[in-house]
């Protein structure tokens, strides 16, 4: 951690977004994580994405569980809503909040312990329900807060800092999310903000359950030779399937790739997710194909990154349940108590 506060001074040319905010206005408190933690880079990517999208901070709700990762919402978006929930229970709190008020942008921040061990049940259900959210899993493969035991996402055969070899199978959260029905699934790396930031932006625009697994090296306990979640290992084995650009609208597209292999996926809010294929066989709108590819890459020891799956026709929980559009906090007495006449009608309908 750092003893001094980050100075408020900023670069004289620091640009402002259309709300008049600089990137610095989206920051939070100074991180208390270990120096070099990948999680801090993810926070920086979130700040960048929110600033670029010109999202008003008070329209965002950050929810997290327990762990190093779940501390991070304190380090970005200092003017947004936040809820630090019970260990592994972030998804249910997020689901409840989303049902009560669909007007906010929901950001779930979790870690591999929080999502793949104690909270795996909640993780599975929030995906299958299609809650409209951006779920970021900061995946470092170890329990950093308790000094580096293997987590459920540690690969079989990978080595702990003191030499112990992991004998258990790893849970692949990306495959799990796909099987469970998440409609936007990506994997990225904290050391590659160029890839991560557009993925976050597109995930926020996606109306449905968006999941990003971000490999985030634990510098203190999992950044040694033999680890499969170290900076060096991920850089050597990173296979990006595509490069993503996110455009807030059709008109805003300024880059035109002359070569083929560009896929455009329009989102419900009018924004465009534009993918440049790096692997010609990879079709990110085909779920079965995505699952197969991920399994094949895993068998080869590759870390597949990029936008792995996006459902063009995604729907969210509110659509499934056909809920009332207005947020609970805006409902007036007459909406909540429609009167005796209405009760009569309902009762009559049930006879």
């Amino acid at each position, binding site marked *: *951690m*750092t*003893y*001094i*506060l*980050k*100075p*408020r*001074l*900023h*670069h*004289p*040319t*620091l640009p402002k977004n259309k709300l008049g905010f600089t990137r*610095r206005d989206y920051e939070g408190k100074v991180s208390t994580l*270990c*120096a*070099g*933690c*990948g999680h*801090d*880079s993810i*926070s*920086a990517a979130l700040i960048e994405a929110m600033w670029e999208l010109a999202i008003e901070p008070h329209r965002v709700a950050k929810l997290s569980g327990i762990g190093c990762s779940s501390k991070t919402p304190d380090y970005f978006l200092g003017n947004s809503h936040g809820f630090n929930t019970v260990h592994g229970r972030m998804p249910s709190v997020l689901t409840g909040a989303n049902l009560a008020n669909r007007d906010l942008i929901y950001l779930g921040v979790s870690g591999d312990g929080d999502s793949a061990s104690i909270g795996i049940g909640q993780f599975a259900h929030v995906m299958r329900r299609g809650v409209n959210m951006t779920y970021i899993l900061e995946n470092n493969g170890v329990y950093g807060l308790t000094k580096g035991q293997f987590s459920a996402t540690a690969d079989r055969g990978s080595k702990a800092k003191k030499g112990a070899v992991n004998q258990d199978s790893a849970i692949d959260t990306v495959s799990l999310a796909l099987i469970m029905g998440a409609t936007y699934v990506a994997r990225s790396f*904290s*050391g590659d*903000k160029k890839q991560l930031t557009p993925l976050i932006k597109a995930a926020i625009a996606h109306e449905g359950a968006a999941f990003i697994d971000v490999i985030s*090296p634990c*510098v*203190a306990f999992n*950044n040694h030779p033999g680890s499969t979640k170290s*900076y*060096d290992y991920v*850089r050597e084995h990173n296979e990006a399937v595509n490069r993503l650009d996110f455009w807030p609208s059709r008109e805003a597209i300024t880059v035109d790739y002359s070569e083929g292999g560009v896929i455009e996926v329009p989102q419900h809010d009018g924004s465009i997710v534009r993918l440049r294929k790096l692997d010609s066989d990879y079709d990110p709108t085909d779920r079965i194909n995505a699952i197969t590819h991920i399994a094949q890459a895993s068998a080869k020891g590759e870390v597949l990154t990029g936008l792995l799956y996006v459902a063009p026709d995604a729907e969210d929980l509110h659509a499934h349940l056909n809920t009332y559009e207005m947020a609970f906090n805006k409902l007036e007495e007459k909406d909540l108590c429609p009167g005796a006449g209405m009760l009569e009608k309902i009762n009559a309908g049930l006879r």
Partner: protein
Amino acid sequence: MQPTDIKHPDYFHKVVDCQWACPAHTPVPEYIRLIAAGRYSDAYMVNWESNVFPGILGRTCDRPCEPACRRGRVEEENQPKPEPVAICRLKRVTADYKDNEDVQKRIAVHKKTRSNGKRIACIGAGPASLTVARDLAPLGYEVTVFDQDPRAGGMIWTQIPRFRLPMEVIDEEVNYILDLGVSLVQRKITSLKTLMGERYDAIFVGSGAPRGRDLDIPGRKEGAPNIHIGIDWLASVSFGHTSKIGKRVIVLGGGNTAMDCCRTSKRLGGEDVKVIVRSGFEEMKASPWEKEDAMHEGIPILNYLVPKSFEVKNQKLVGMQFEKVKAVYDEKGKRSLVPTGEPDPFFECDDVLVAVGQENAFPWIERDSGVEFDKYGLPKLNKETLQSTVPNVLFGGDAAFGPKNIIWAVAHGHDAAVSIDKLLNGENTNERPAPGVTLVSQKMGIHEWSYDNDIVADARYKVPWRDIKVTLKNVKAEVELGFDVATAWKEAQRCLNCDVQTVFTDKLCIECDACVDICPMDCITFTQNGDEDELRKRLKAPALNASQSLYVSGALKTRRVMVKDEDVCLHCGLCAERCPTGAWDMQKFLLEMTHAGHGCRTPKKTLPLKAA
């Protein structure tokens, strides 16, 4: 780009903008930290070693350091009025609060204890000559300083008014030098050849630029009794010969001398005092703060007026006629002043002070002395060694390259002393000594540094002024009161410690981006290498200030490089605090100029000792 060679003494020196800009290369952040620590005597000595006249310069310096100060750039878009650290006024703080006895003792250590038998003559007792004397006397040289006046100081006391610089301050600092074993002789040198005949081993000419330029326009002769040359008039005020001036005064000229003239007039009976300049207000040579000081005292500055004539009635000056002009720029950006065609304005006045520039004058140097002059009447000099065409006759201060300022005179004095020392030790004066450079890590603990790395957001503090009712009545009442201890501390906290350098070791970097994420000024980028011009455009924040270096590392594991734009780095050390591997470290760069003495001499090969 090639990886930056941080071993070159100039690289980090350039990052310390204030020190780089200072002609004497005073280690500014070093003494500001000492002020913050309450170690005023130590801070004074850092200054004394480097610029010789801390108390004098702390009031009068031209402050090339301040426009260069990084704080000014850092505050752009962050502070309503971006301003540098008050470096100059903090220098005065060291003089005001030092322990006089302690300082005297420390200076006395340098006293000449024995003679090396070599005799040096310095002509003029101004800052350049005194610096030569200070550097050479402790080494055993017999230094004699000649001046036409009975006291030493030169232009420091004759041209700078007492309300800016009290006599006690001059006497104290001049005496520190004379007490080292320097003789001051009142003698006007009228012939260089005569002096050369007196068998000095070296002669240093520090006689200044003593001739004020005149203005030859109609009416000059007729109005002569009420038309005065600025520097001569200031000197006569300093000597006590002049104590009053007419009620309506026009000061011609836009330099610092003009500012001193108008402010002095205001104190000697001038009620309606105005400054009139040919050029635009912005282009005036006077330092911005001196213009402000004059205007604060109710003196208007009128611009774009070219003097046409002095108007005389009944043998008495009654006013001046001017021509109104405007600035016109040609395609090359060259300015010319073109009459606007408006009727010529007339200003009434009782006295005119002409402060339109100074010239060098060497009527006492015979043209067959061997010292050659160029077409501008300036001596032909070796710019590095300051030697003239006669190797043991050297020039410095305003006498060398025309009017500059005190701090340049000091820098020349140091350089000339090195040349003299080398020359008289039979060495090549062109082999200049390298500065002393140290680079030391400031790490004290995991997140602790031996300097105060917390950045304050305070705007520049103002130096308090004595009541204007008092100062305008008394030409000797000092206007500025200097910072009190508490304000000095606060102002010192504004210094960014630019000498504590961000040092990067590429082989330790794991490219985790922690430094990039924490840097408040977006100075750091990891990217593909490229040409400098192109690289400057694609950094995290564009590096548009080409006068500031890019610090480029060697290739990293991903074959990218680390590029740091030095321009607006706060030296807060957060990159080093967030670095998990110690690839970033904060290291204090201390550069001290090598002055005359053993350090400046070329190392000799030691001969093997012969058996007895």
